[in-house]
């Protein structure tokens, strides 16, 4: 497997980038992408239970991911996908365990890809994992991993966990969760509902805000969605951090004009929606039961 610059080199590159004031996200992504890659093909076990590793993995990059998951590639490209190493451990015809190791370029991308679509939260493997029905997904550092043993059997479930833990052990680094998560108020937060994203099409996970992009969400923004359940009420909170205050103002204007009828708080469907700006950040309360709840939710985020 490819082994490029060491962790020390990466660290120096990041410090240099910071020192000369380069845009954080692209540098972060490219520097990490050039980082040393674990030797998954060489070091993953040759057998797990009755399932045997193939002689070599299939490799994909941003251009060829369509060949592997045509129609699904865009989701991972939107999270910064760099490359994939995939294996099919087999124990006979139609009896396989599919291993997908996605290099998302950064912990930001890996967390986002992992969090998208999850419905539960655990820390059995890596820095966050979910298991159900034969599918185990987890993230660690810049890697998002999926191990699928379907149809699920007890022996296959054990093999799935064994493989996942072997992969996690080959990834020596850990990554930080997106900073924006720290701004989410804790009371009532449904942890497994937290979604980070950088593409406007992912803004509608819990409430359909718009099919367009009034908030101007793109690769330069950090956005998070989360559900809250509190005594007597539930709502959704969305935070968007922009590179500049001007960008945040533009996003606020876009939302109020195209979604809220030029108001800062309005009823949309069965719920109330409200927005406030705090410097470079927009705080958006969604699907709240009343205007008063919107005001309270907005006040909870400085």
């Amino acid at each position, binding site marked *: 497997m490819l082994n490029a610059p060491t962790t020390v080199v990466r660290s120096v590159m990041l410090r240099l980038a910071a020192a000369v004031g380069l845009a954080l996200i692209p540098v972060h992504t490219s520097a990490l992408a050039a980082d040393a890659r674990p030797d998954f093909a060489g070091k993953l076990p040759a057998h797990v239970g009755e399932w045997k590793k193939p002689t070599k993995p299939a490799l994909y990059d941003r251009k060829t991911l369509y060949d592997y998951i045509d129609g699904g590639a865009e989701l991972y490209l939107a999270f910064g996908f760099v490359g994939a190493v995939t294996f099919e451990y087999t124990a006979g015809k139609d009896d396989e365990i599919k291993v997908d190791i996605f290099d998302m370029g950064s912990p930001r991308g890996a967390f986002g890809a992992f969090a998208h*679509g999850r419905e539960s939260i655990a820390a059995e493997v890596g820095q966050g994992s979910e298991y159900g029905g034969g599918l185990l997904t987890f993230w660690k550092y810049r890697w998002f991993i999926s191990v699928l043993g379907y149809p699920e059997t007890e022996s296959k479930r054990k093999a799935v966990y064994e493989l996942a833990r072997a992969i996690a052990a080959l990834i020596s680094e850990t990554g930080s969760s997106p900073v924006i998560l720290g701004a989410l108020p804790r009371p009532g937060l449904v942890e497994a509902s937290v979604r980070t994203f950088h593409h406007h099409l992912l803004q*509608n996970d819990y409430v359909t805000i718009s099919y367009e992009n009034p908030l101007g969400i793109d690769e330069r923004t950090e956005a998070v969605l989360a559900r809250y359940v509190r005594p007597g009420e539930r709502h959704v909170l969305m935070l968007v951090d922009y590179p500049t205050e001007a960008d945040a103002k533009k996003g606020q204007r876009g939302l109020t004009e195209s979604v809220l009828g030029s108001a800062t708080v309005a009823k949309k469907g069965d719920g109330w929606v409200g927005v406030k700006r705090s410097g470079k950040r927009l705080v958006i309360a969604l699907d709240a039961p009343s205007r008063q709840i919107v005001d309270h939710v907005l006040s909870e985020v400085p």
Partner: protein
Amino acid sequence: MKAKNGITRRQFNLSITALGGTALLSRRVLAAITAVGKTKVILVRDATVLDEKGKPKQNVVLKMLDDAVAALTGKKGLDGWKTFLGPKDVVGIKTNRWTYLPTTEAVELALKQRVLDVGVKAQDVAIDDHGVLDNPVFQRATALINARPMRAHHWSGVGSLIKNYIMFSPNPSSWHDDSCADLAGVWSLPIVKGKTRLNVLVMLTPQFHGVGPQNFNPKYVWGYYGLIIGFDPVACDSVGLRIIEAKRRVFFGEERPLAPPAKHITLADTQHHLGTADPSKIEIVRIGYDRDSLI
């Protein structure tokens, strides 16, 4: 402008666009448009359709198809099939062979059986998915049957009948912009346009939520035991989508929109005029098992 039978000129034209434009097709259109001007979609269900391993039984599928075609065309048995297929047709059955949730061999073979029963020569019928552009039968096809399961999808909201034709494009990924918003445009490609005779949205074990690179988790697949059948792919998809959305509400216990939304279905109507997505303009004819239909 209202026609004598209550069908507006636009509704008639939409269905003509979806189906083709021959005299034969116009009779089908009239059969599939109800007296109140709605597009007819058949929802047929049979709780015994799956075997103990969860695989569909071909004989039950065949009966479901026959019942649905009879309800759609107003003619029983082979006479119903003969309203939209003839012995001289060259028929491509566009299937979907996604590993985890395929159209299934039972559905494919049942459709092929009826195509042959109509009198189509064996060498003039083929079943294919990714190879349609290189398949000689599809290359000279006069008629297409479109059959696939509905499932939550990474980027288009749902994998739909409309989306199933993406393999007729030499560059499928070119249709992925804006969460596949303009997928209905595929239906205007010359190899496809005007050839579709029947749409079968397989809802035997649909998937209402996806996760991971394979976008599959059996946790989110359930036995619905149904087929949605119609001449209008947009109307069939619209009905299927409502079932998927309803299942998400039940499972998650709250409103949970598909992310990204399946807007290509609405746009297939409003922008591409391929068919009818508006539920108020669709009449669902229900046959068979009716528990937990979600619609």
